């Protein structure tokens, strides 16, 4: 197991053993319900969860991964560990998912910075050690790049839809792929999220801590208000649509043409405007009123009565929205996907 310094624990709190950490510091969980000073950490934990629930990444009090005061570092770790305790107490899986995602993003930022920190070898070492310990990928620094075996690269990148991630679009030499720090970290994003959520899921559920009941209840009602993340049964959707949903679920920006494709496709599959609208919720520029208006327009339920059809594969190719695979099987429009063509 990695030996971490205090500031490293603050950056990568999921590496710390919760129980041990508290014991080390001489605290028990129950104290957090009553002790007014420790309550600050509880508030911070609550804030951390709320930020994650809103789909954002919590900004810590660290500056460049450092803090001037020890207690700041300590509170960083406490708030993470407490956040997990609180989430466990709510028992809400939506919160687990969102929190893990946000924390993974946060860790990703630090890993990227540590890898890119050319002047500090120990930081690079730590980041590569974390990646090796957690995901069993051996990364070696070579000049400005990180090199990893082609097979490892393929195993992790094969689920990415962007053409940029195809092996042919990477520099490959001697059985190794050359990556910049940000790509290196991007490669393990999903695993990082999975790692953190499995840590939360596998953590034992504590019994209620007196004094925290209100906070837990607040979180439960917050979680209920969250629209459940749009889960789809994959397989029946073509790659272009899966990709668009992926992008939105990650809170990344999908160009207008992509939103048009997605909405018209789902409408053509008989989904209602109300079912589709929540999909766009994570988009950086989300506005519920505008989204509903636009969707209704596409569906032909408002204003004009024209119903818009999903663009052709050919058109989507020119818009860089096509991620064709074998399963597309020569169809000319995504809406034909998976339906056997009549001869």
């Amino acid at each position: 197991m990695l030996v971490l310094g205090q500031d490293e624990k603050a950056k990568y709190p999921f590496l710390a053993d919760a129980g041990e950490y508290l014991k080390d510091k001489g605290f028990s969980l129950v104290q957090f319900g009553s002790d007014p000073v420790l309550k600050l950490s509880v508030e911070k934990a609550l804030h951390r969860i709320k930020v994650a629930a809103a789909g954002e990444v919590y900004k810590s009090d660290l500056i460049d991964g450092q803090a001037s005061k020890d207690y700041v570092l300590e509170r960083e770790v406490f708030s993470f560990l407490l956040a997990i305790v609180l989430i466990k107490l709510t028992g809400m899986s939506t919160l687990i998912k969102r929190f893990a995602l946000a924390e993974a993003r946060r860790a990703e930022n630090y890993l990227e910075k540590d890898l890119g920190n050319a002047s500090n070898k120990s930081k690079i070492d730590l980041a590569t050690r974390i990646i090796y310990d957690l995901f069993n990928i051996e990364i070696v620094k070579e000049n400005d790049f990180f090199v990893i075996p082609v097979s490892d690269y393929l195993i992790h990148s094969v689920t990415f839809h962007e053409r940029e991630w195809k092996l042919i679009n990477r520099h490959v030499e001697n059985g190794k792929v050359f990556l910049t720090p940000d790509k290196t970290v991007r490669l393990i994003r999903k695993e990082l999220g999975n790692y953190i959520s499995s840590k939360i899921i596998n953590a034992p559920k504590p019994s209620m801590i007196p004094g925290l009941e209100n906070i837990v209840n607040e979180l439960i009602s917050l979680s209920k208000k969250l629209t459940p993340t749009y889960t789809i049964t994959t397989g029946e959707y073509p790659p272009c649509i899966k990709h668009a949903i992926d992008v939105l679920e990650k809170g990344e920006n999908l160009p207008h043409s992509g939103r048009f494709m997605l909405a018209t496709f789902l409408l053509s599959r008989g989904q209602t405007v109300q079912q589709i609208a929540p999909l766009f919720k994570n988009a950086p520029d989300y506005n519920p009123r505008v989204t509903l208006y636009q969707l209704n327009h596409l569906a032909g339920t408002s204003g004009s009565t024209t119903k818009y059809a999903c663009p052709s594969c050919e058109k989507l190719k020119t818009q860089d929205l096509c991620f064709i695979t074998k399963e597309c099987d020569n169809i000319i429009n995504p809406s034909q996907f998976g339906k056997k063509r009549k001869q």
Partner: protein
Amino acid sequence: MNENNIKFLEDSFKKYYFNHFNLIFTPQRTSEREFGYQKFNSGFFNRHISLKDDKELHLLFMQNIPSDVYCSNAYYAFPNSPMNEKDWKEADLIFDIDAKDLDLPCRKNHVVSICNECNEISKDTNQCVKCNSTKLEKKSLPCKLCINASKIEVNKLSNILIDDLGIDKENIHVYFSGNEGFHVYVFNSQFQKIGSKERSELVDYIMFRGAIPETFGMKKFKPNRSLFPDFNQKGWNGRFSKQVFGSKSKRSKIISELLDNGYSSFQKILDSVADNSGAKIDPNVTMDIHRIFRLPGSINSKSGLTKILCTDLSKFDPYTDACFLNDESVEVLANCPIEFKLKNKKFGPYNNEKTSLPTYAAAYLICKKLATIA
């Protein structure tokens, strides 16, 4: 195929297997492989066979006198169970290069059409010259050009495997397939355990498919000439430079042209790199991790030639080096409108005539349905 032909082929194959069992390649970790075989005139494919060692393999040949024998590139815990219960462990990386897919202009000169309706045999045609039927079976007697072109593809592939993918030369084995191409095996590589999707990415890399302009320095916005590849670079950057720029002195001028022509026409450049420098392998073969392949050392019943290891590819000549059947002469009725060469001897053309041929040549024609035992 009639009884006499089958008996003739079985006899000559049997003699080969008896005399040349040393040529049969017993794969490493034999007991983890799936074997399969077919017999003459039987549509049935015997698969899901597991064998302990070379002795059991020998027995399979002697007891069944198969027309074709196959072995998996995959290793399984239970090779003789049905496919979904075999418990796949890993698989050697395998590539298939076939002259048929290269579609060279010479091909029409050595393809024979056999009419399914009236059995008329003629040079390559789309319609039977006798009964006008379009139901034709094509048989190719590949020429030297085809073999040489396939060798070039094998070399392209080997270079990418060695330089880019870090494979040791000793772990690459090139086999003549016994008919129209080559099978390239890669053993003990970092890719043993990767699945079908990952292998398909490797295929795209080797064939140069799916490249985007940005990878080779061409940007949509604010293009910048300093981003283009250079000659001394490894991998596709270097190959791109060699093909697109030609020589160091032309590089600068050509970059200016590329920038002038713009982003969207750059795709055409990439397509031409794929055509010229990508290795023309069969993608489906490499992606399939449950396939069985003709066993090295066994005879290909499409030709009577042996699937054999090419130790020196540049000198390899399938029509002498893969031709192992004996030269006892037999009487056949031959109908083959084109000439061919085996063991440095010229044969044909034959116009539906009785002739006496050495066994290896008779087998070659009978396997291609261009002769029968008289």
